[in-house]
Structure formats: C-alpha cells, structure tokens
C-alpha cells in the first residue's frame, strides 16, 4: 500500500512537470518582468489545458503525499518519493528531448542521495 502511494506521487509529479514544461516551452522564454506583462504571460499560459491538467496532477500528488504520511513515517515518505528526481530526469531526456550529460546526472544523483540521507 505504501509503495502504491509512492508510485502515484512519483507519476503525478512527473506528469505535472512534463505538461508544465511542454506548455511553457511552447509559450517561449519570458523576458518582460514588469508586473503587468508577467501577469498577462502567466494568465495566457494558465488558460491552456496542459496547465489545468498539471495543477490537477499536482493536487493528486499533494493529497497522495498526505495519505502516505498518514500510514508511513516522514523518514520513509521523503526518501522514497525522492525517486521523482531520477524519474523526471529520465522523462526530460526521453520525452522532452533535453540533453542530460554526465555532469547533470552526477549532480542529480548527489542531490537524490542527499535527500535520502537527510530524511532517513
């Protein structure tokens, strides 16, 4: 049961971030940081179905994490869901076609190991 929640959290977070990245890359680099322009850009982006779906998946992930915490300790929940970092990096490479070199993999592995150490 615990691992089922972990799987839901990892999948929902990854799905949410993938949709958000896709949509924002299509929008293009935000260059104007004046409040009005930034607000308009984000409002335009938020109207896309991908952003609505990303927010829904984020909510799924949030409530699944709450549910996981109700049956497992933080020292299980945090390191187990840190797998998200590795899964997201894989998806970024395979689906979003980002170039993930050795340095980025090593850095991501160090961060993941660090999260595990902190939480255990």
């Amino acid at each position, binding site marked *: 049961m615990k691992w089922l929640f972990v799987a839901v959290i990892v999948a929902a977070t990854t799905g949410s971030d993938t949709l958000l990245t896709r949509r*924002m890359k299509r929008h293009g680099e935000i260059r104007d940081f004046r409040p009005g322009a930034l607000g308009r850009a984000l409002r335009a982006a938020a109207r896309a179905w991908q952003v609505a779906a990303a927010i829904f998946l984020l909510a799924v992930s949030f409530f699944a994490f709450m549910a996981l915490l109700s049956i497992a300790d933080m020292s299980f929940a945090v390191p187990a869901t840190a797998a998200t970092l590795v899964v997201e990096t894989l998806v970024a490479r395979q689906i979003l076609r*980002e170039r993930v070199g050795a340095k*980025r993999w090593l850095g991501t592995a160090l961060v993941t190991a660090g999260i595990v150490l902190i939480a255990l």
Partner: protein
Amino acid sequence: MSSPIGNLRLKTWVVAVVVVLANVVGNSCLSWGLKQRGRALGGAPLEYVAAVFTPWVALGIALLIVWLLARMTLLSWADLSFVVPVTAVGYALAAVAGRFLLGEQVSPQRWEGVLLIAAGTALVGTTAIRTTAGGES
C-alpha cells in the same frame, strides 16, 4: 545590455531563489498554521474551508501560488532536468532552517545530506540552462 548568456544565468538564479524560498516558507506557514489549530483535520469539507481562512494557512497557500507561478516562469526557458535538481536545494535549506531558526538537533548524517545536496545543486548549476530549441517568442 549585458551579454544574453549572462542575463539568462542571472534571471535563472533570481527566479530559482524565489521558487525555493516560496516553497520552504510556504510549507512552513502551512505546517505552523495547521499545528496551531491544535487538532487534526477530519473528513468534513467545512473544516478545510475554515482552516484556509486562518492567517498562517492563507499565507502558506499564497506563497505556494507564488511558487507555482515562479516555477512556470522558470520553465519557460530552463530545462526541467535543470530546474528539478537545482530547486531541490530547498530540502537542505529546510534542515538548516530547522537547526538555526527552530533549534532542532541535526545529526551528522543529516549534515552530510545537506552537503551532498549543496554539491549536487552546484554541479547541475554549472550545466547549460537550456538544451532544447526555443518556442515562438
């Protein structure tokens, strides 16, 4: 105007700092606000609605909205595989804040974790911010 690459790094770091701080402070506000209520949330929807209107919880939610918008801004130019490990420095920050703001005990193993996260973030930070082709603007 300075070089475009210098600009990109600068704005990436500024927005990344907003993402990390909004997340760490937002979660702390939520946690603090919910604990102050003194009892666990039950199944009644009205209880959740009432909780939202307490100051700390409302502030926490506002900061998490800032977190989402700042992250969307960052992802309009930066790789997901760059943003995720770099903003995970919040895990380390939470441990450091626990030690210095709340006076919690932090074991040597947790300090090692903080160091690993800092090293990993720094390493990813030296890689290209964006490796894919651009959008329309």
